[in-house]
């Protein structure tokens, strides 16, 4: 999954999609995840990074991760042909 290149993501978790004018607020964990996605990391790599850093097991993280990425797809914040 590739995050839209044009997406502007601030350090405070504010996300702006310049093609639609929509903006979103992310919590700190979501911000970390979306930054890792933007850097091109795979879901497995992201899972490793987050579970190592936070007190969360892999299956719980996976559930939240796919819920989050599903939302990103729904909001068209990912590159369509890479979905």
């Amino acid at each position: 999954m590739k995050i839209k290149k044009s997406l502007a993501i601030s350090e405070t978790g504010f996300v702006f999609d310049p093609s639609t004018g929509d903006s979103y607020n992310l919590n700190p964990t979501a911000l970390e995840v979306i930054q890792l996605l933007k850097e091109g990391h795979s879901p497995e790599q992201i899972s490793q990074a987050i579970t190592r850093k936070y007190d969360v097991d892999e299956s719980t993280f996976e559930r939240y991760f796919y819920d989050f990425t599903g939302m990103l797809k729904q909001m068209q914040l990912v590159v369509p042909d890479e979905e």
Partner: protein
Amino acid sequence: MKSNKLNIAISGLNNVDSPGPGIPVIRGIRESNRFTSRIIGLAYENLEPGPYMHDFVDKSYKVPYPSEGVESLMDRIKYIHSRENIDVLIPNFDSEIFVFIKLVERLREMGIHTFLPTLQQFEERHKSNLPAFGKKHGIKVPISYPVTSVSEIFDLKNDHKIDYPLVIKGIFYDAFIAGNSDQAAIYFNKISAKWGLPVVVQEFVKGTEVNVVALGDGAGKTIGAVPMRKQYITDKGKAWGGITLDDPGMIDYTHKLISSTNWRGGMELELIRTSDNDLYLIEINPRLPAWVYLAVAAGQNLPEALVQLAAGETVEPFSDYAVGKIFIRYSFDMICSMDEFQQLSTTGEL
């Protein structure tokens, strides 16, 4: 005509909840560093805010409504011109553009310059002519029919030419979405009473409304274009907040449309972007819109460029604009003296 100081007459000074473009156009002109300006406001009503906004309007004159006839408007313009020596005139209401297009030559003979669409451009983009316009220029438009009675709407439905929900639109302003025949009849009566006939019945296209403000040089070249999405819409459907978009598709669309029509003057494209990413043209307004100052703030001073074009100058096209620029409209209670109100009401000048 070359001058560093221009006397510019501008209408559309009703800076109210459904604002005319006059004041935003003046804001752009005031920010010009290519010329200075004396702004002459053309007002239709005593309570239009523009005449009392002295930072924007230097002198105001009441003018008769276009519906009172071309000659009475022309007589008034002649009088104003004798006092103010107007260089450029920018009409900003849809309902007066037609009249001023008709007067372009006579105004030019008086030394008053305009930069308006041609009569053909104005007529072919009319809401009631939109399907033919779409076909001619190869663009997607919703199915629409001009009607003069409620029964025609029912006939269109019975003949399966159109289905609910549909949009009922006034020839100049206003649009309502009708979900059934009762609503269609109510909206038809409401709009026809206010704006006259025909009323336009249009297919409802589901998607996100996006808009473009643009300026064509009359020879197929786009001088500037800025796309925007309304972020906050009033109950009258007007933008109370909006944001500039990074949308090369909309810019390309605008360039093609202006090239195909040789559009002359300002325009606002009202488009619907569907979930399939198709753009449907729902309307072309033949003037700069009330949100044009967003384009100025984003780096394209289109009102200034329009004045330069009217003055016969060559204008280089804008190549860029700031994305993510937001406008938020606000209301403001201006305090005016009874003397000023009295002066405008009784003498027609302020």
